[in-house]
């Protein structure tokens, strides 16, 4: 598969660029929207949770806490949402041209990745504004993005193929995304969770790969984060769980996709 991906890189690029162009060609602010949306969302959440509800965390501004969660989250959520419909919406291409179909969800993820990377630059800009040191671990950022992307790609394979067969998947994905959003430490902090929830829940909670990945982003970005981490975070749930999850998601997703691929032509036209 990796060989196939490399071989078809120009097609993936074309498809990804198509997605982005369709998304940003017409609006006047075009490309800037992908920066404006997460930042403004972060701002809203900051006003709501930090200023009104007095959620706070000690060592670094809450706004940065929100932004480090929201940017990777947007990448995750919007990839999955668009990927779910990626096969279905390209049925005219699939039925008429012979090309590897798995490239469609891959290109969606690629488009969202291209979307995501510049936002990280803006994030670094905010670090300068808030006078926060970016840690030396920042050179591990590509690895973190790789783990994250692998997870997204695997899930995208699964949902895009399943959506063709069962058109309910789209809505299931929506609900799961909402649930997952509140199951990751974005709008609140880990300390607050551990204070209030039962220890068993916290243990299960920490096995959520997204929690691990989010923490990884914070570890590599925020200089002092690694020193002041909540004690629930350990090597297993921050690194091992996400890596294992990503790899197995990738293989399982591809397997599901491969299994269902032959049925597409039957189901696409009904």
């Amino acid at each position, binding site marked *: 598969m990796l060989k196939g991906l490399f071989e078809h890189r*120009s097609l993936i690029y*074309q498809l990804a660029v198509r997605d982005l162009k369709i998304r940003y060609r017409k609006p006047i602010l075009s490309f800037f929207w992908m920066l404006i949306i997460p930042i403004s969302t972060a701002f809203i959440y900051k006003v709501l949770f930090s200023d009104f509800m007095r959620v706070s965390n000690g060592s670094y501004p809450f706004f940065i806490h929100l932004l480090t969660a929201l940017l990777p989250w947007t990448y995750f959520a919007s990839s999955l949402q668009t990927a779910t419909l990626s096969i279905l919406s390209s049925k*005219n291409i699939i*039925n008429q041209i*012979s*090309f590897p179909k798995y490239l469609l969800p891959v290109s969606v993820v690629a488009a969202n990745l291209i979307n995501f990377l510049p936002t990280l630059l803006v994030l670094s800009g905010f670090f300068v504004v808030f006078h926060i040191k970016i840690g030396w671990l920042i050179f591990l950022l590509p690895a973190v993005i790789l783990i994250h992307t692998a997870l997204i790609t695997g899930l995208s394979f699964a949902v895009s193929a399943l959506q063709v067969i069962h058109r309910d998947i789209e809505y299931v994905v929506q609900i799961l995304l909402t649930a997952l959003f509140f199951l990751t430490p974005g709008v609140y902090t880990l300390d607050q969770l551990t204070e209030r929830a039962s220890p068993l829940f916290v243990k299960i909670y920490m096995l959520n790969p997204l929690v691990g990945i989010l923490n990884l982003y914070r570890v590599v970005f925020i200089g002092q984060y690694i020193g002041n981490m909540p004690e629930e975070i350990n090597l297993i749930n921050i690194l091992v769980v996400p890596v294992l999850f990503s790899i197995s998601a990738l293989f399982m997703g591809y397997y599901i996709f491969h299994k269902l691929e032959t049925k597409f*032509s039957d189901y696409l*036209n*009904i």
Partner: protein
Amino acid sequence: MHVIRLNNVGRKFHQFINADGLSEKESGLKRHVVKDGAFWALRNVYFNIEAAEIIGILGRNGSGKSTLLNIISGSLPLSEGEVVVKGKISALLTLGAGFQDEFTGRENIYLNASLLGMKKNEIDKYFSDIVEFSELGDFINAPLGSYSSGMKMRLGFSIAIHKEFDVLLTDEIIAVGDISFQKKCFERMTGFRRQGKSMVIATQDTALVERFCSRGILLEDGRIVSIGTPKEVVEQYEMILSKKKILSEGARSQMVSETKRWATDMHEWGKREGTREVIIKEVVIFNKNGRKTSKVKRKEKITIRVSFKSCEKVDDFHFGVALFREDGVYCYGPNSQFDGFATPRMAKGEGYFELEYDELLLMPGTYYFSAAIWDKNETFAYDYHKCNYCLEVMGEPVFGQLLNLSYRWEGPGLWPFPGKKCLPALDYLADKWGGHLNTSEASFTPLIFLNNYSCKNSIFITGKELKVKIDYKISESQEPFLKNLFLWVGIYRSDGIYCHGCVKKISSCGSNCEILAYPKLRLLPGGYRVSVGIWDANSAKFLAYSHGINSFNMISEKRDHGTVYLDHRWNWQVPKERED
């Protein structure tokens, strides 16, 4: 040296329960529907595409041409068999797939070409050629939405032919754009032929096939009917088309008018003969639920499945199943040759064939059937089981009738299901035609037969409508007995076999006119006679009758054996040929 080899290729489409979307696709297409609700759009397709060969695929709409091309191009997965490709394929099946209206022509070239499998540097290399060939000029930087449909097609075509390929697949789309552009396309295609490229062209244009192609393939109903020189195949295609025309125009010169109607020799029933290159191993009947049985209900759907084993490679064979009533009356005996299927060659191994009847239009009784695998001319069977198998249609026999045809009486009035009470007790076999009895109580005038245009006629086509108009008179003196009186109509084969009879309650005295309609009269070619009578159920005698004085003839476009045409389908799976 072949570029592409198709080995027993088949494609099954699944039908879904909510058939809203499918109904338009299905209607009017006769398909090979199998048990699980799927149908075969293409089956048992074998052929090779050699290097530098131009193949023309002919076939009517819905015969499976596009499915075949889509399968070769790889955009449609196979349900069975394999396609071995040794070369690059370019498919001109749908032009400009994936075109985005909001993108410029330039962007679309990159997008569409990458979808077709071209690399970035290839596209860069051919970009100016593509633009030039498409004659778009400066429009190339305008959004595609502003193009005319002809411009889009031209652009799509130009991109597709600039991909490097060994085999080009096209689907009736050489006719793109205006005449001068078409000329240019044709010239380009001729250029490809000179370069020794292979091509597969699906088309309706017989002139194109004869002029341009080196080999022709004729598809009908998802199967290959013939492969050969373009001339032969075109001739056969035109025959198929004209057959359809005969039916619509009513010309009858080539129609079949006589049918084999009896078992040749009933002493041989239960015997087997054959040269035994192929051996029939098992014959099973399945009912509509897929259960093995030998007893079925009236009008039930049944499937006869014959498993066989071939001991040698066999060419030019066909399958046959013949159904007889226990007294030797030939009910129906279709074979795959009559139905026009070219059967592929069969290798050593095991296989089966199935004959599926939608509705068994036979009256209750005991029937026997034969199963056979024949050689080309039906001279020596490979294996022939003569009436070794019994099939019982359950229910009470209805006075000697053979067939359970659907009919209706037009106009008001009761028409009871023909039971013992109201149906004249008649024999299986009628003799002495021409008897008639008109009394002062009741009398008949000659019958009138009408076709589906309500025109008077005496020749009818198998499977089309037949109406019988019956004028009769009953005197007022019969008024008190009216509730016991029935009008009876019986159809006989010219040799006396009672095929079908039905009754209607007589509602009033005086001059009456009734019309009996068979919406789809499925009698096979030959002569038929009609008898009518006024039956008094109380005293069990006819008040008046006319026996076999009126007659009509059935004709059909296709040869068959027996008495009644039953809608049926063939399915088969023969041992695959293993190459290399």
